[in-house]
């Protein structure tokens, strides 16, 4: 493997990691606070991508389309949390089954509306070009996604560690009953965090659509990667999601290059190894 191809694989891995991080961070925030394993998160991603693509075709504005994808899915998340999940608060298994049901409905409706052929989101003109550094030529768009991942990761980190709402969320992760007893409406915090996670999923769907294409089944495929990221990093941990994303992104990129028929399966081994060493992931805490 020459140095150029090595650099390409590393870039592929890191840019995919950024996408995974954007998706996994929303999933892990919701899990950490509410103990909800939202299996509709992949469907949120896919439907967000399709909505973004539709807006892009109508308006031609990539940034507007990305933000509307996020906003639409945040609204969807608001409905799902208020109307459905709130009725099952604290019942772990029914909550999971409900999100699976939601995922099936959304995935099937997406198939009905947008069809079964893979669709790619066209990359915006100013990002369609390639960057060349030394011998390595690489699509600018993927580099931008990497940047977006880092910026949003930093923003969530600041939101969680440096603001009042972040302090409330962190307190809620530890003991939501006490937070409620202190006079804070924890239900609104739950709704906010769930919508925020959904927003991230929708936005990631749009970026992912310009990166990996949108097709029926992409929802559960990307969800598996996000799950492995969260399991490796430790469910509920934001730094865990970051480390897990980089690990899974790089392993996947090299796995695809070295053993294409085992794609998907190559991320399994590190997950197994980490679980034997730390059953709740690298940064996970016991429930």
């Amino acid at each position, binding site marked *: 493997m020459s140095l150029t191809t090595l650099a390409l694989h590393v870039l592929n891995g890191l840019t995919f990691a950024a996408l995974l991080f954007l998706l996994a961070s929303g999933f892990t925030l919701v899990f950490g606070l509410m103990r909800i394993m939202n*299996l509709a998160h992949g469907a949120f991603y896919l439907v967000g991508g399709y909505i973004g693509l539709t807006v892009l075709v109508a308006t031609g504005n990539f940034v507007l389309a990305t933000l509307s994808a996020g906003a639409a899915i945040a609204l969807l998340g608001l409905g799902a949390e208020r109307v459905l999940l709130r009725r099952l608060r604290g019942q772990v298994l*029914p909550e999971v089954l409900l999100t*699976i049901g939601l995922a099936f409905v959304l*995935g099937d409706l997406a198939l009905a509306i947008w069809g079964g052929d893979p669709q790619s989101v066209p990359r915006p003109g100013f990002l369609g070009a390639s960057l060349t550094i030394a011998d390595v030529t690489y699509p600018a768009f993927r580099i931008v996604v990497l940047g977006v991942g880092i910026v949003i990761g930093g923003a969530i980190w600041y939101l969680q560690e440096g603001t009042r709402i972040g302090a409330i969320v962190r307190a809620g992760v530890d003991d939501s009953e006490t937070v409620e007893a202190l006079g804070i409406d924890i239900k609104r915090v739950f709704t906010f965090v769930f919508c925020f996670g959904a927003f991230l999923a929708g936005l990631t769907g749009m970026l992912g659509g310009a990166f990996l294409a949108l097709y029926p089944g992409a929802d559960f495929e990307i969800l598996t990667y996000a*799950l492995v990221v969260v399991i490796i990093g430790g469910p509920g941990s934001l730094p865990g999601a970051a480390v897990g994303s980089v690990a899974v992104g790089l392993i996947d990129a090299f796995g695809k290059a070295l053993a294409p*028929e085992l794609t998907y*399966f190559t991320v399994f081994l590190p997950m197994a190894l980490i679980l034997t060493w730390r059953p*709740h992931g690298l940064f996970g805490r016991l429930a």
Partner: protein
Amino acid sequence: MSGARARVGWVLVALVAAFALAVPYLTSSFYTALVTQLLFFGLLAMSVGLLGGYTGLMPMGYAAIMGIGAYALGYLITRAHAPMGIAIAGAIAIALVVTLAFGLMAIRTSGIFFSMITLAQGMLVWGAAYRWYQVTGAENGLRGIERPFFAVRYYEYYYLVLAVVAASALVLWLIVRSPFGLSLQGIRESESRMRTLGYDVGLHKLIAFEVSGFFAAVSGLLFGWYNNFISPASVGLPSSAEAVFMVILGGAGTLLGPVLGAAVVVFAKNFLSLYLSRWPTIMGLIFILAVLFARDGLVGTGRRVAIAAGGRGNKTTAVE
């Protein structure tokens, strides 16, 4: 169990057994095929129920264990041209080894963490089925999984499935009533208390995982022979979720519940999909409605109704 209740229970078991034996004579090949499906999905659901209902560890990837049984059988028959006996033993052995590896990964966790890890395991098996072309045939799957020579026709095959599932149900019934089964329920109620009492909780969980895996693999063999075919679509998350749904819908913590749940799902799928084209949407809506409105499952609801009516819940006594 009081004498009178036990008698009613045995009469019910005898009636169900007589009906089960008569199915191919009473109904068409279509309905016999449906009952065949109900039986092997019921076995899968019971194996999920042993872990999820009795031990309190809900596996979200068990269609993958079933799938490994079916894929291993298919590979040994269609690619390796192994004799039937060796194919059966080999398929079970492969499934048990994979289950052991999965179990070792998952048993150190509990609750939702356990579900999350088994979910990821299931999806990765799906990924392997989809991409490992040399072994699994990828999207085309494995075709031509022959049935044993004595059970080729549909009614012969029905009796084979009935015999295997009945024997498995009996073994599972003995297991859940045994001291081991009671320890599993103890782990469900309080893992830390069982540990304090000196039980090796990890070992109990691992054995439960392995026993469940065995029966899931057996249901996989029955599934593979039934369709003569296995493909990635059968081992994915939707199938695993359906198995969990059967347990929840029927009633977790019972053996009858998962079978009833399997019956509802199999019949709903086959009839609703005749009239409605969007089956995943329908199934998703059924999931959502069922968890919102029927939380303790059919058996639990039946028991509540029976208690409310002043009855003694005879229906559920016999099989627990």
